[in-house]
């Protein structure tokens, strides 16, 4: 009887873990023909978007490893990256040096914000996600205070093309012409055209350098899991009390996990924006957080378990939906706006569903644990009652 239950449990868990990607594969399979996009267009778009977003999403993995859930505070790192980019555009540093310099400037800001975030989260154990979420809003206010009021006044910004006409504050949209797609174009690779039977594919460009950076990051994650620090984080993620009694400095390790995530999110945002070519000073970071988390969850990750595979599956599926939904909505309902709202709905809905599934599993586990503690007779008595 014991075994039987475990098998059904395993099966349901397997389904629960993979239900989301499967649903998305079905949605995309239905929506792609409806949208009427060509394969070449879709593949080219996907190649660009995977390169653009993967780094940001990968930055979420470390806190999950440490059992801190989805790091909604990653937008702190994104803000740090944007501050770096503002300075770099002010100084007119272009090309790869511009990108690297933006990252270097963003790093201390990201470390400081990460330390703050880690320490705040240590005071709210068990509520990390909602706390990091609100912290993101809070720091967003501080960021606006700095960028909208201090820059150009307390913080010197020379370039008039960045500053609002009133004399201080950064403009709403900043063109990053100097560093636009420089990383993507560093090692260009053109592939195609192909013809496989009736399947035709035109020339597609692959941003090789961006993918090399992403691959390096993946290797970093794999290597990091094996280090002492990585092992400590996993132990904390399993059980904080046990890890504490084993002599692992729990609070310190958790702060480090958040700092790493924040700094990497900062780099991710710089990579993201070099591809976009425009910095929306006051909302680029917001979208970064929401879309990254939604993509990771669509890839089948849960709040407590996420791997590199989830990242790439998620980014492909999420962006596939992102590209085809408006067109599919237009062709199906006659309104592109429906598709637009649909993808917003899906991004939020998927996060809600993933959080519910996670909480539900945990709840069931707790109930099971209680039942096994009480012993079989008690459980039977309860069932009878």
């Amino acid at each position, binding site marked *: 009887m014991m075994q039987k239950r475990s098998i059904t449990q395993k099966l349901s868990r397997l389904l629960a873990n993979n239900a989301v990607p499967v649903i998305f594969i079905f949605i995309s399979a239905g929506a792609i023909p409806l949208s009427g996009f060509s394969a070449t267009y879709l593949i080219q778009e996907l190649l660009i978007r995977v390169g653009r977003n993967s780094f940001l999403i990968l930055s979420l993995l470390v806190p999950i490893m440490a059992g801190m859930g989805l790091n909604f505070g990653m937008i702190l790192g994104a803000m740090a990256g944007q501050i770096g980019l503002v300075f770099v555009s002010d100084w007119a540093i272009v090309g790869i040096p511009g990108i690297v310099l933006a990252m270097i400037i963003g790093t201390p800001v990201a470390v400081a914000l990460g330390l703050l975030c880690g320490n705040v989260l240590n005071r709210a154990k068990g*509520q990390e996600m909602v706390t990091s979420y609100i912290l993101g809003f809070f720091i967003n206010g501080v960021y606006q205070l700095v960028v909208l009021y201090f820059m150009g006044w307390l913080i010197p910004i020379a370039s008039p093309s960045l500053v609002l006409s009133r004399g201080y504050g950064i403009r709403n949209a900043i063109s990053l012409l100097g560093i636009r797609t420089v990383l993507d174009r560093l090692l260009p690779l053109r592939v195609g055209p192909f013809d496989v039977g009736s399947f035709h594919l035109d020339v597609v460009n692959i941003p090789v350098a961006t993918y090399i950076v992403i691959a390096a990051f993946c290797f970093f994650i794999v290597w990091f899991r094996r280090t002492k620090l990585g092992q400590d984080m996993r132990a904390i993620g399993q059980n904080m009390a046990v890890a504490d009694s084993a002599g692992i400095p729990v609070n310190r390790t958790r702060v480090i996990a958040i700092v790493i995530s924040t700094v990497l999110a900062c780099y991710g945002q710089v990579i993201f924006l070099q591809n976009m070519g425009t910095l929306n000073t006051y909302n680029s970071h917001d979208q970064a957080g929401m879309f990254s988390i939604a993509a990771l969850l669509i890839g089948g990750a849960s709040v407590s378990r996420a791997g590199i595979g989830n990242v790439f599956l998620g980014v492909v599926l999420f962006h596939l939906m992102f590209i085809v939904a408006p067109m599919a909505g237009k062709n199906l309902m006659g309104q592109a706006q429906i598709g637009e*709202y649909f993808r917003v709905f899906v991004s939020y809905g998927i996060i809600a569903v993933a959080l519910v599934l996670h909480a539900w599993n945990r709840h069931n586990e707790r109930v099971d644990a209680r039942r096994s503690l009480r012993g079989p007779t008690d459980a039977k008595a309860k069932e009878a009652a």
Partner: protein
Amino acid sequence: MRKTVRKKRQAIHVFKKFVDMAGWPRIIIGIFLFSLFMAAPFVGVLISTSLSNTLERFGMNGVLVLAMVPMVQAGCGLNFGLPLGIISGLLGSTLSIELGARGIGGFAAAIALSVPIAVILGYGYGQLLNRVKGDEMMIATYVGFSSVAFMCIAWLLLPYRNPTMIWGYGGSGLRTTISVNGYWFHVLSDFWAIKFGHFLFPTGMFLFVALMCFLIWLFMKTKTGTAMTAVGSNPEFARASGVNVDRMRIVSVVLSTVLGAVGILVYEQSFGFIQLYMGPFYMALPAVASILLGGASVNKASIWNVLVGTFLFQGILTMTPSVINNVLQTDMSEVIRIIVSNGMILYALTRKVQVKR
């Protein structure tokens, strides 16, 4: 000599007691607000206008903030899922306009239409929250967000006919903002309104808010209400004494959702517009911040917290733009609002755990 020392000690003791009771954030914000009111005449801001603005916004938001109380009391955490209640209210108000109901009757119709919707939605929402105990707040946030996004699609597709609400020029679906002017604009606010000079006191709205507060206060005194509070403060104990914890939680969520629906109606009749689509998206945050500012914690809230918090929060929102902008010649109100409201929530979230340990 000794006497003065003792007196000093006593004074410090009284002061400490006061600080413990009121809490530092309220004292700081209170002093800030007070100084804003003091500074107002010197920078050319009329106190009567600002005070009446503050009062009007207090009335507009009062019931929305009150919607936090039942869920917090039942231990379901802060109701970040308030948009769900707001959506019920939006459905009710658009339906009442569709039916062409006007005046007080129209407002009553809107309430009558939205309450059943809120009960149904709240029941489902409560069922969901019962399965995710411990993670309510994060899930509530995203349930709120996704329901708002879902309703965006619905607003486009629902078969409304009233020309004041749908897009002209061959567009389909409801407008982003719908005026309630000519239907039930200011039906509460203008009821017995007292006016002298620039000062306007929306008596009707205040009476309504007071009535709602009184009803909730009364409910909390009933057997169900006390059982609910017991569930919030000690679920194990409540279970042991024979209270159905899950049922109590559902009752609280339904109540919160209904209050959210009524709250948005009060808001709309004063504001004059129904805001659809992404309008309700971030409405939970100010309400959450208000009740926390009023001294509530993540698992304990009272009517008193609602009143104090709403007054302080709305007071700051009204006063900072007028006073600070006159001093600095810039509009910093948006940023101050973000920092104050989220700082407040952050403070509450980090404090709760400390108390527990």
